[in-house]
């Protein structure tokens, strides 16, 4: 039985369809859209918070999305151990919601950057990277204006000590502290990352390195499947 991904649609989400397409067409899994206005997520096995500009990113990226009804359900889902992947704006929403520590500021160069970048897999001890090799280089695109990850020193030390940094930029494009491109929560079931793995699952898009994130999720889900 294929795994069923729920892709949240906020007003202003614009990578929702891309996430849906890569899960269904590139990975052969199932996906359905979850409307922001509902507190119910139905029968999904994992949740993707896609990229885009939720609620126009007014006030601050992700700041309004955290108050949406669906995020209550996402919090419940996460606290019960469900896999949650926040990509780009999804990562911003996760930090605004307190599901992940730190904050995402404007890129160091103050400009939006769209480019394929190289990431180094910093740990394979996660349901999002279990199918990767430690230190593997993944070429995955970024497309953001506010992706500079920051956190206080203690939080950064904690992330390192608990092996919760999943990806680091090989050539830091946005000024993120310690080259951080993606981090996990303490429960190791919520990942936020600025790069877009869903844009790198089809050879025609120039890279399939993003598959490993989604494939890891599928693989880690399999053992508990009834």
């Amino acid at each position: 039985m294929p795994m069923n991904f729920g892709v949240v649609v906020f007003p202003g989400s614009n990578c929702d369809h891309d996430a849906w397409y890569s899960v269904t067409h590139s990975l052969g899994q199932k996906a359905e859209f979850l409307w922001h206005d509902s507190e119910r997520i139905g029968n999904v096995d994992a949740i993707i918070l896609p990229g885009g500009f939720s609620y126009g990113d007014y006030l601050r990226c992700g700041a309004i999305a955290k108050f949406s009804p669906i995020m209550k359900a996402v919090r419940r889902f996460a606290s019960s151990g469900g896999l949650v992947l926040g990509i780009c704006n999804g990562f911003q929403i996760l930090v605004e919601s307190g599901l992940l520590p730190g904050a995402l500021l404007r890129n160091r160069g103050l400009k939006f950057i769209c480019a394929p970048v190289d990431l180094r897999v910093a740990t394979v001890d996660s349901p999002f990277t279990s199918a990767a090799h430690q230190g593997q280089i993944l070429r995955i695109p970024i497309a953001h204006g506010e992706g500079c990850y920051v956190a206080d020193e203690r939080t950064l030390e904690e992330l390192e000590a608990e092996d919760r940094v999943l990806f680091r930029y090989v050539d830091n494009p946005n000024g993120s502290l310690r080259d951080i491109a993606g981090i996990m929560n303490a429960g190791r079931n919520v990942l936020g990352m600025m790069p877009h793995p869903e844009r790198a699952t089809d050879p025609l898009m120039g890279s399939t390195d993003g598959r490993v994130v989604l494939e890891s999720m599928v693989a880690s889900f399999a053992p508990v499947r009834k």
Partner: protein
Amino acid sequence: MSAIAPDLLAHHNLNPSEYQTILALLGREPTLTELGIFSVMWSEHCSYKSSRIHLKKLPARSKLVLQGPGENAGIIDIGGGYAIAFKIESHNHPSFIEPFQGAATGVGGILRDIFTMGARPIAVMDALRFGPLDDPRKGARNRRILEGVVSGIAHYGNCFGVSTVGGECVFEPSYSGNPLVNVFALGVVRHKDIFLARAAGVGNPVIYVGAKTGRDGVHGATMASAEFTDDSKQKRPNVQVGDPFLEKLLLEACLEAMQTGAVVGIQDMGAAGLTCSTCEMGGRGGLGIEIDLAHVPQRETGMSPYEIMLSESQERMLLVASKGREEEVFAVFRKWGLDAATIGVVTPDNLLRVKNHGVIVAEIPNPALTDAAPVYDRPHGKPYRTAPMKGPTFSSNDLNGDLRRLLASGDLCSKRYIWRQYDYMVRTNTTLGPGADAAIVRIKEAGISVAMSLDGNGRYCYLDPREGARLIVAEGCRNLSAVGARPVAATNNLNFGNPERPEIMAQIVEVIEGMAEACAHFETPITGGNVSLYNETRGEEPIFPTPVMGIVGLLPTESPVTPFFKAVGRDIVLLGGAGACDETRFGGTQYAKQILGGLWGLPPALDLDYEKRTGAAIREIIAEGLAESSHDLSDGGLAVALAECCFSPGNIGASIELDSGMRPEYLLFHEAPSRILVSTANPARVEEIAAAQRVEAVRIGNTVAARLTIRNRGTSLIDAEVRALENLWEGGLERLLDGRLVQT
């Protein structure tokens, strides 16, 4: 109501004879609101009064054209029950006054034109023209305008969620006071989901959706139809402010509402806002529309009927729904959190009737605003040009230095600084993004891909408008063929100065006629476009005549052929041959501009038939999988094109041996068309295909590691490290924007 004084007319850009026509059409004096309505509908921007009779000369039909000019966008059949809608629009005047918002709302406007047709926008390209960034007097302002325009495009397109997949950016002094921002957009639609901007069904409700109406943009269309004066800065309130988030919601809501089956017709409110959408929707359907402004959602209090009718607030649409099914439409807009209000009804009388709280404030026959709008056959003599026919005497003593300067120049350097600010991947369709000869997006639903290219060349058109226009069409088609796509249709944006000057009008006429000839030859009908006139600032030179062509082509969905060499040891074939050049034909080249600081003579000579056969040959070469790389020659000629082929991560260079009697500057840098560089492992088969098309194919050398060398009959002309050239090319724009001197 005899208050219509001459200065009031002048304020509305209407001349006395136009006013007499209005009196005759109405049989009475217009109200102030009616005068405002006439002024925007009869503006150059909306009525095309100076260009209309000439635009009819453009070919507009082919077997693939589902919708030609006259709607919000043209539509082309791509097979499998799918179609693409595309068009180009300018936002030149607003972008000068307020670069960020002017450019942003330019993107917003063209996106609405696309989804009005029922199509989901999936790609945007931009043709930009600015004054030189290193101009000692105006450079700072030009740099500020470029930064603002690029951020505005990025802001709107990125947030909306459409890929900005390419474009072009050129610098000339004549654009210092008149930057050009032309935005092309393309969307996908199923045949059966195509919507037209047409009212139907007497008694059907007219529904307003989207943003509330404010005072912004009142008289934007008339502003865009006049020269700039010192007062233009005071027109700042005429520039609208865009909200891409709202537009994204509007897109989703409109497409969803269309699926309910309750929508009869729909049109965006762009230039001339509510005025244009009501009278055009009514007029196209042969029916009337009656609205009451009291029902129009407004974000300011105390707006007059005049202001509401002329407002150009962004992100608004007007639709006609089936009577009794309004609630289905409202439900969709509620879901997306958008305002929707019934503001009127379709009537049988072919009148635009505007009420305010039940009192009629305007009542005009639709044809008076559209069909009866003035059409001028403006006098046109000899096209404006001051350039001489003969150029300076010159002889280069540093060809390597010349190449470096060309590669670092604003026109030829990498535009990566610009396009990396654009999300060119969102919706995961872009198989070939910015920086190639053409962009390619796959159409997932239809299993086919669409290539697109934007091209313009003001220098060529200045020297010879007719030949320049033909060359632009040829280059656009060549760009498409160079990625393996068959050109099928086009859209044009005609940017010129003041058409009331016969020498400018002559440029317009010559360009349109040249374009018509070339488009007919390449079988690329023009399915719509835009005309932007009065691009001159009083007391300064008018812009170079700058037609911009957006051409689209079709190709199978597969791994794209890029311009970059892939491996060493391959043969490099110059398809089309070395071309010909003389002193006269060298005067429009980039070498003449960047190295000699001149502009003279004529643009390169073009043989339309040879160009077409060259295109057919390269498409066949690519279809057979023979081309490892393919790159057309254009600005900067052979040497620049060869260098560009080397700028890939693989650091692959070329060793070239030429055999030509041409003087080295011409041989390396002349810009004769119909030429494409191909690297291949099977040159013999490439030559066979070329021969069958009666096109020259010359093996000029091989790919090698890391170095570009060009020799002619044993003499070294160019010898350079690829990486050194690439660094100059890659950083050219940033150096210019930093205001630093370019060290070559």
